[in-house]
């Protein structure tokens, strides 16, 4: 598991604590019952704080899978 995915997996385990399935790039909100609209907002804020980055509103709406989120984080880390 790469470094970014590992860090985000930690947030997901903490935030969506009823989910005990695998956390891979293919994971989507549909697979995690607690990952609803509020859960998505809380995930984004937790990622922003842990990674020291900021998302834009349209980015947050564009993530279709965990892999999309990981790629966006990595792009922002390279840019900073």
């Amino acid at each position, binding site marked *: 598991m790469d470094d970014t995915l590992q860090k985000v997996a930690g947030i997901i385990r903490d935030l969506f604590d009823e989910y005990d399935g695998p956390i891979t790039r293919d994971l989507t909100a549909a697979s995690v019952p607690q990952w609803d609209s*509020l859960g998505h907002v*809380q995930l*984004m*804020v937790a990622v922003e*704080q842990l990674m020291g980055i*900021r998302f834009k509103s349209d980015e947050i709406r564009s993530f279709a899978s965990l892999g999309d989120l990981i790629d966006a984080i990595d792009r922002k880390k390279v840019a900073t």
Partner: protein
Amino acid sequence: MTIRVGDFATHEFVIDEAAMRAFQALSGDRSRIHCDIAYARERGYKDVITYGGIMLAHLSHVLGVKIPGANGTSTKWTISYREPLYVGELASLHFEVTHVSKATGIVEGKYRIVTGTRTVATGTTQSLVPPNEIEVAP
């Protein structure tokens, strides 16, 4: 008014006997530590301990009236009780904004409840607010 990191608010309150009775009736919590002075003294306290839920009611006041105010919706609170707060003691709740996210409309804060030199409780909050009420430092 916009909300930014570092904004703060203070709220003073006293939990009196009437509040204790009202909360007991509301919650049905009859724990002896809150109702039985002899029991509380046996355990080293000088009096019964006020209900922590009443302190959270005062946190609710700060969030709903001061920061983020009337347009906020609480999504998460944490609290750690550190020292007892006794009936009749003047307490102060100090709240500070620690993180804002305009993209998500989230405001996070931390708070501390003190009486005299004692810290009674500490915790964190998270609220959803309309993004146009959030100001992000450049």
